[in-house]
Each structure stands twice: as structure tokens, then as C-alpha cells.
């Protein structure tokens, strides 16, 4: 028995050195599934840190608000964990920040807060949100000293209009 144990121990030790893993590719995969709003609503300073926290086992997979149920479902699939729905999914339009250009005093605080550099402008100049880049993370709201930023839904067009789930006599099947 001792002999067996010794041999195995040696083999394990060798394997541990030989197959050493560098970095964590899984965090990248998780990060790719997160919505990248960098909103920090999960309690981590961005999507990548949250992904690393999931890999490290520190965080649950249901903390991402912008990702919603669909995002969590993908995470649950990737990680082989149970998916726990958080409620009926609501179809949402993309929400973007809008700066009231009359009120803006050009303090640049929001520019510094924006995690994706979606606000342009310079000191003492009026600022504008590039709605194409805005993730609707709301991080620019608190720093604004004059509360000139509001969040608004993007207008509906035939391009972002969606067909509804067919309403039928059968019950809707939830995908578990």
C-alpha cells in the first residue's frame, strides 16, 4: 500500500508541475457572456472582475441585472449550474443617457464616470452622449452636479420592433 501511495504521489507531483495551468480562460468566456454595461450593479467594478469572481466561486451567477434571465441562463449553461429564474422576463428597449444641453455646465464629471467613453465634450463646453456607444449603465447620473442627465428609451422603429410570442390556446413553455 505504501509503495502504491508513493508511486502515485510521485506521479501526481510530476503531473501538477507538467500540466500547470496559467491564467483562467474561463473568466474570458464568462466575460464574453456578460452584457458589458460595466454598470457595477453586481457589486464588482466591471464585467470582467465579476467574471473572475464567478470563476473564483465568490459570486453567484444571478447578480447581473442588465443581463437578465437570458444572460443568467447562458451562464448557468456554461458553468453547468442550476438556473434560477428571477421572474417574468420583460422585453426592454435599449436605454441610453441623454444630456439636457441647456442645463449642462460642462463640468466633465460625467465624462470621467463613463466606463465606455461614450460622452464627449471638454471643460466648460456642453457634453453629448454618443448613443451608439452608451450602455445605459447610469454611472453618469450620480456625479452630475446639476442633474442634467436623464435615461430615455430609444425610439421604436421597424428595425428594432419585435414579433411577439404567438398567443395561443396552449400554455407558454418555459425553457428550464
Amino acid at each position, binding site marked *: 500500500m505504501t509503495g502504491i501511495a508513493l508511486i502515485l504521489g510521485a506521479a*501526481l507531483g510530476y*503531473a501538477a508541475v507538467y*500540466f500547470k495551468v496559467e491564467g483562467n480562460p*474561463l473568466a474570458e468566456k464568462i466575460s464574453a457572456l456578460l452584457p458589458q454595461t460595466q454598470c457595477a450593479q453586481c457589486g464588482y467594478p466591471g464585467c470582467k472582475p465579476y467574471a473572475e469572481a464567478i470563476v473564483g466561486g465568490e459570486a453567484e451567477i444571478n447578480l447581473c441585472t442588465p443581463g437578465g434571465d437570458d444572460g443568467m441562463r447562458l451562464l448557468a449553461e*456554461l458553468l*453547468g449550474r442550476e438556473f434560477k429564474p428571477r421572474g417574468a422576463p420583460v422585453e426592454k428597449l435599449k436605454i441610453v443617457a441623454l444630456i439636457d444641453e441647456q442645463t449642462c455646465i460642462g463640468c466633465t464629471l460625467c465624462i470621467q464616470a463613463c466606463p465606455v467613453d461614450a460622452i464627449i465634450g471638454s471643460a466648460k463646453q456642453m457634453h453629448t452622449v454618443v448613443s451608439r456607444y452608451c450602455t445605459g449603465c447610469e454611472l453618469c447620473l450620480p456625479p452630475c452636479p446639476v442633474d442634467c442627465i436623464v435615461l430615455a428609451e430609444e425610439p421604436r422603429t421597424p428595425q428594432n420592433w419585435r414579433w411577439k410570442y404567438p398567443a395561443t390556446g396552449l400554455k407558454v*413553455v418555459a425553457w428550464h
Partner: protein
Amino acid sequence: MSYLFVIFGAVLVNNVVFVRILGLCPFMGTSKKLDTAIGMGMATTFVLTLASGTCYLVDHYLLKPFDLSYLRTLAFIVLIAGIVQITELIIHKTSPALQQVLGIFLPLITTNCAVLGIPLLSANFGYGLLESLLFGFGSAVGFTFALILFAGIRERIDGADVPIAFRGVPIAMMTAGFMSLAFMGFAGLDRFHN
């Protein structure tokens, strides 16, 4: 021919999951998606074949000559634990996603009754080295086979309007039961061997 029957018997007639009812934990746990099932099946095949051979060697050249057969179970457990550890390290290096998916289950292979049960069974049957290897391999292929088929069905059931009380594991257990029932049809097909 008898070697063929060992494999045939292990894969279909005495399928490790459906007939011997061994290894249910990974069977239920890793059969949600086909890809996972294939990965788990391959990992188990690797471990089980290796374990069967190693266990045979230890049993035949170490335990039997020194009359230590009463240590068989103990020795096998240690051996399997070691082999699983090595496998885990290898998978960890080569396939991170698989590692994460199998993360909970790979250490469980250590205590997977199939992995312990098959070498013990082949020791009881008095199989030789080649037979042990084939039996281990065949059983593992049977396990993989069961896992893949089961995963296919589960993916389909995912879309079905299953009563809420039966969603998830309950209906999976029901399905495993029906599959077991189906595999009973092979009963008696291995009687030409033995």
C-alpha cells in the same frame, strides 16, 4: 469471439447504467447537454479503462501473491483516486471549459461506483488482463453510450410541456427508467458467453 461478447455484453446487455444501475450520479449530472455528455463519457472511458488495467495488475501481481485479496477494495480505491487526480490535471490543462463543466464531477469519478464497481466485478469474474481492459473499456463505452443517448433525449424534453412538478430531474429519472426498460430487451443476449 468471447472477447467480442465481453464488449458487447458490457455495452448493451449489461449496460453499466441501465442494467447494473451504477454511476447514476454523473449520469444525471452531466447529461443536460450533448457536448457535456460526450466530454464526461470520454473522461470516464479514459479513467475506467486505465483503472481496470491498473487494478488488474495490482490485484494479480501484488495482492494475490501476498494473499492480500482482502485489501482489494481499499487498494482499488487508492488507485482510482490517483488516476482520477491525474486525469483531472490533464483535463484542467487541455480543456478549461470541460474542466469547469466537469469540475464538480471529476472528483466524483473517484467515488463513482461504476469506476470502482467494474474493476471489482472483473476481479470477481476472474478476467485476465485483456479481458479486464476490454470489460472496463466496454462498460465505459456503455456508460458513454447511455450518457449520449440520454443527453439527446433530455435536450428534446427541454422543449416539452412537462408538468411543473416533473420538470428537471424527476422527468429525467422517468426517462432513465424507460430507457432501462428498453435495455431489458437485451436480456439473455449474452448467454452464449460464459
